[in-house]
């Protein structure tokens, strides 16, 4: 380049400042529009949720009291209560929690830490993720065939619990895998460099670091399990249980089932709708408590590194 050309270029502005300012203004407006759209979407979901809770709450007022929680099923709406379904749901959790956590975490540890990375491993991983998306009715059918009929567990708490465990197992596995994957390699290196075996490293470094993530995932999975209706309906879990469940082989009923049948029966007696609403509030309250615990665990035990 000659000296002249260089001088010329020096005087010439490549960027037109006016056009630049105009385009900038446009982008700032666009930014505000985007923000508005996102806020509106959030408000929309919040509004729907608000309306839902408001209506259910209104219907349940006067019905939701201590007597309702403590008494058992009755054909007289004024006397009916959900003592049985509450116990049934608690029993269900007592099966689902240990089964899914033990199986789920063990599977995740195998897939993340032991399995050699390759086609087989990624094939399994993909299929577990796919399982998480299978409709819950299908799991109900599987439970009916395997646990209900083949293993002759009928519609007991054990059959229901195992079916629900299958349903949420993929969620626990995937959540645990993510938590294990998030454990930084430099922590594992530190342990191996001190002569630790793989299992020692998993026990003393990897699991403690991943635990908050694993527990959060498990609790969220559990709250999904106690809200599910379809698999239990397919299993043939009755609603007319007058006996309080006292062991894993007892017949039982659960909160979502109770809600389902009372809602169906509301055409016979309008008061049943109120009973269903009161039960919904109880179930929502349980879910709320569980999700709060999950958040607390995440905030409290999250490791700093």
């Amino acid at each position, binding site marked *: 380049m000659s000296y002249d050309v260089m001088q010329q270029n020096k005087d010439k502005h490549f960027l037109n400042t006016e056009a630049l300012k105009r385009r900038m203004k446009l982008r700032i407006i666009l930014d505000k529009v985007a923000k508005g759209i996102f806020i509106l979407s959030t408000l929309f979901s919040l509004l729907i949720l608000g309306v839902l809770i408001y209506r259910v709450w209104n219907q349940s007022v006067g019905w939701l009291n201590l007597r309702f929680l403590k008494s058992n099923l009755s054909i007289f709406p004024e006397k009916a209560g959900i003592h049985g379904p509450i116990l049934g749901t608690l029993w269900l959790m007592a099966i689902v929690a240990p089964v899914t956590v033990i199986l789920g975490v063990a599977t995740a540890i195998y897939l993340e830490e032991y399995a*050699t*990375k390759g086609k087989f491993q990624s094939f399994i991983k993909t299929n577990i993720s796919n399982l998480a998306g299978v409709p819950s009715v299908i799991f109900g059918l599987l439970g009916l065939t395997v646990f209900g009929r083949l293993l002759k567990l009928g519609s007991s708490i054990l059959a229901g619990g195992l079916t629900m465990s299958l349903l949420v197992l993929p969620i626990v596995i995937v959540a645990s895998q993510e938590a294990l994957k998030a454990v930084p390699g*430099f*922590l*594992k*290196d*530190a*342990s*191996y*460099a*001190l*002569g*630790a*075996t793989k299992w*020692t490293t998993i026990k*003393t*470094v990897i699991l403690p*670091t991943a635990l908050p993530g694993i527990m959060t995932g498990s609790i969220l999975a559990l709250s999904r399990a106690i809200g599910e209706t379809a698999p239990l309906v397919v299993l043939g879990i009755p609603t007319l249980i007058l006996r309080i469940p006292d062991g894993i082989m007892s017949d039982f009923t659960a909160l979502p089932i109770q809600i389902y049948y009372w809602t169906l029966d509301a055409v016979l007696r309008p008061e049943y709708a109120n009973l269903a609403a009161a039960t919904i509030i109880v179930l929502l309250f349980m879910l709320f408590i569980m999700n709060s615990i999950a958040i607390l665990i995440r905030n409290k035990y999250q*490791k*700093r*590194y």
Partner: protein
Amino acid sequence: MISQNTNKDEAKRIIYSVNNLNLWYGKDQALKNLNFTIEENDVTAIIGPSGCGKSTFIKTLNRMIEIIPNVKTSGEIIYNDRNIFDSAFGVEELRTRVGMVFQKPNPFPKSIFENVVYGPKIHGIRNKKKLMEIAEVSLRNSALWDEVKDRLNSNAYGLSGGQQQRLCIARALAMEPEVLLMDEPTSALDPIATAKIEELIMELKKDYTIVIVTHSMQQAARISDKTAFFLMGELIELDKTKTIFTTPRDKRTEDYITGRFG
């Protein structure tokens, strides 16, 4: 091509003797026909341009390299008369004898005390009093005791970067190793923290054999007895540090240390 000076005058015990070591990451060869000896109570510095295989080599000495998939080796590394690649020589045993300090301080998200006694604990020492003794000795030896003795139970991530690195050294010392491998242990630290670690290394060499990778020529000159110059996976020259920095035999070594490289 490889010039090596075996000192007949001062017969030190040979800790490591590397013979015809080759290493591949998949198909890419990262170490080429290395021959290397490391003598007792020496500080051996490894220098060379980025990507020449320094980290790869030092991680081979305690077989940490095998954590990376698809790594293949050939040749032998004799550590105290035994080939570390022998199946009879477990990696766990090797790593309790050969400690490692990493480039980035990597304490566990646990208390300072728990960090130091991690090694002894996983190898079966349960006695609280014994563990406390080990912690104190290791922290004293890593020149950290005075700074942390009042907060042994607080989280290690509350320490400064330099303190964290000395904690990692204490953690390695708690296993009472024979050799300490250090991969650029000061590259993430400020000059004052670096000076402290260098001082510490000078102290530790009385009791340990140290291999240190460094990018700082000055550091190598200050603290090491022997210096090895690596280039593209090959050992170009290994000699007394003084010789390397004053009268290197290989032209490429001279070019590198005088900054005329590349």
